[in-house]
């Protein structure tokens, strides 16, 4: 996946000279996850820039660059190190279009490696999507496959609105048949996709939890449960259509994500599904999420992250009648 993301930036930079990549260690080192590897060499340090170590400064400068017609793609090194930049993000990036009655769009992509499961120490595993989702003016997207990583990042860079691009860091090393020589067409932002067809219940998920849900769906088959898996890809805008159509077909739904449950993304999703599918639901919409605790130390993270068993438990709680 890291390679697909890198390729997306490279293609965008080659096509459009206004695209600039910047952040901490993105140049010579190629980023701590090597996602920007080679860009500085190919496009020069003015197009792929090692900035001083200051997240508010990076994003604030990106605002000014966007005001002058550039399309900055900034990297926040880790989820929890984006927090110093929140003032710029919330007060300026998200609101500039609105404050200027549309005169000043903010075509900025904020790339954030996020989530756990890689044994990172403190402050290296947060899932911050709920904060971003709660801020009008931002798009929030997150790929779960190598193909989507390329397509979604191209779409994000092409977008005239700011996009918080959440990269599930435990999927950085995931592979597929995707070939960098024949990149897939760019997907528009805001479309969910059904990753697996099923009739018994819908697992609604995104990012790092997609592979977990697919695995759970396979495991469920042994018990006679036929599960559908919807990968949201985009949290804002939210694809109500794909999600509702799926839940109407299956009549049951579980939302799965690793960020905390209370006030988390699942709360919004469950409410929307209930509002739209109330008469089709055979059971309440359930949530399987991380516990409502600060992200745990690496030695305990497996107890926090929602795994296959917890997903299957929730499916069982949908008052399933075996064999139906």
């Amino acid at each position: 996946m890291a390679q697909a993301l890198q390729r997306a930036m490279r293609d965008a930079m080659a096509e459009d000279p206004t695209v600039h990549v910047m952040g901490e260690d993105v140049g010579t080192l190629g980023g701590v996850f090597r996602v920007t590897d080679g860009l500085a060499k190919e496009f020069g340090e003015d197009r792929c820039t090692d900035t001083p170590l200051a997240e508010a400064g990076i994003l604030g400068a990106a605002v000014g660059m966007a005001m002058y017609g550039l399309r900055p793609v900034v990297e926040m090194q880790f989820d929890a190190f984006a927090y110093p930049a929140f003032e710029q993000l919330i007060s300026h990036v998200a609101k500039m279009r609105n404050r200027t009655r549309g005169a000043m769009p903010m075509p900025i992509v904020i790339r954030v490696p996020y989530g756990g499961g890689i044994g990172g120490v403190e402050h290296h595993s947060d899932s911050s999507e709920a904060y971003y989702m709660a801020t009008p003016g931002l798009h929030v997207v997150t790929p779960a496959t190598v193909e989507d990583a390329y397509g979604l990042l191209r779409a994000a860079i092409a977008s005239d609105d700011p996009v918080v691009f959440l990269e599930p860091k435990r999927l950085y090393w995931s592979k597929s048949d995707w070939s960098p020589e024949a990149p897939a067409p760019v997907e528009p932002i805001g479309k969910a996709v059904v990753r697996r067809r099923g009739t018994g219940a819908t697992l609604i998920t995104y990012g790092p939890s997609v592979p977990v849900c697919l695995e759970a769906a396979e495991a469920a088959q042994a018990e006679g449960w036929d599960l559908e898996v919807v990968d949201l890809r985009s949290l804002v805008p939210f694809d109500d259509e794909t999600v509702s159509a799926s839940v109407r077909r299956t009549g049951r739904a579980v939302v799965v994500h690793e960020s905390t449950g209370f006030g988390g993304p699942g709360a919004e999703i469950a409410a929307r599904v209930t509002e739209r599918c109330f008469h089709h639901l055979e059971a309440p919409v359930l949530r399987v999420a991380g516990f409502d605790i600060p992200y745990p130390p690496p030695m305990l993270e497996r107890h926090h992250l929602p795994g296959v068993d917890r997903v299957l438990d929730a499916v069982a709680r949908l008052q399933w009648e075996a064999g139906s």
Partner: protein
Amino acid sequence: MDSLQQRSSTVQEPPGAISDYRPTPPPAWQPRTDPAPLLPDTEPLRVLGTDAVADADPALLLRLYAELIRGRRYNTQATALTKQGRLAVYPSTTGQEAGEIAAALALEERDWLFPSYRDTLAAVARGLDPVQALTLLRGDWHTGYDPHEHRIAPLCTPLATQLPHAVGLAHAARLKGDDVVALAMVGDGGTSEGDFHEALNFAAVWQAPVVFFVQNNGFAISVPLAKQTAAPSLAHKAVGYGMPGRLVDGNDAVAVHQVLTEAVARARRGGGPTLVEAITYRIDAHTNADDATRYRAAGEVETWRAHDPILILERELTERGLLDEDGKRAAAEAAETMAADLRERMNADPVLDPMDLFSHVYAEQTTQLREQAAQLRAELEAEGEA
């Protein structure tokens, strides 16, 4: 709208009067303080290898030596533990031991240390159990130690964010009438963060008893100092806030100890904060997970090895007849004992209770957490039975 029109019309009327207009000259601008005494010297202070070393207390020299040897051994041991998978990650301070240790030793017991994520040696020099200093990096708990025990704030991973805390604590101590000083440590990269600037400004305005200690080891991960700042030195940054900036050779343990002791004393007697920049070098990569060959030349490392903090202190002690082979052996043995103990205790699997996940989120557990704790307990029981 109306008042705007009125105002503009008064400015324009009567026509012709504009030529008679003479602005009142602004009051002559006066610098409020002469910045000269705040400016750092152009050369970093050195004591070892200069005449000034004659004044150094032999007991202090020997103490520093023993601690530096122990610190180096700690670094090599912790790095070895990463290779054995006993530690998730370790940011080594090999080559930087003098700054870490001499700075920590300049504090009195009642003072507070605010370390960054790299400053394990400073914490250990202050008395923290070597294993506890690694809890965070092993991954069994976040920080985990009790900050009150040795007056060490949690090792801070988000860069520069501990600096305002140091200012607040020092200020609070002064409000209470305690003569406590806070030492706040940060790397060269961290000085670019907004929190660094805000902390310095608060400290100077409040005249808080804080010493800011910047260890300039040349790099923030891969980014060299030249891409971090255009200032003549990081110590120069002090002047704009109204506090003195001091430059010191960070590999000269005696010089670091002297500059820090002066800054701490100044803070304690109500003289306000100081910004100290120690010039040093990171011999190892950023962490064991980093590939330093991508951004720096090997020759550079070799130049700095010749200015190794242990080497230059050892030379002084030997020349003065304070250290012989027996002395060296004794220091090495003491370090080895520490390393053996560290190795042994780190090789034991930590005993973890997953239920602790819910123990310290709130003073009193919320209903929500009690429910989740029950869920996990049931899962663990099922796991145990399976």
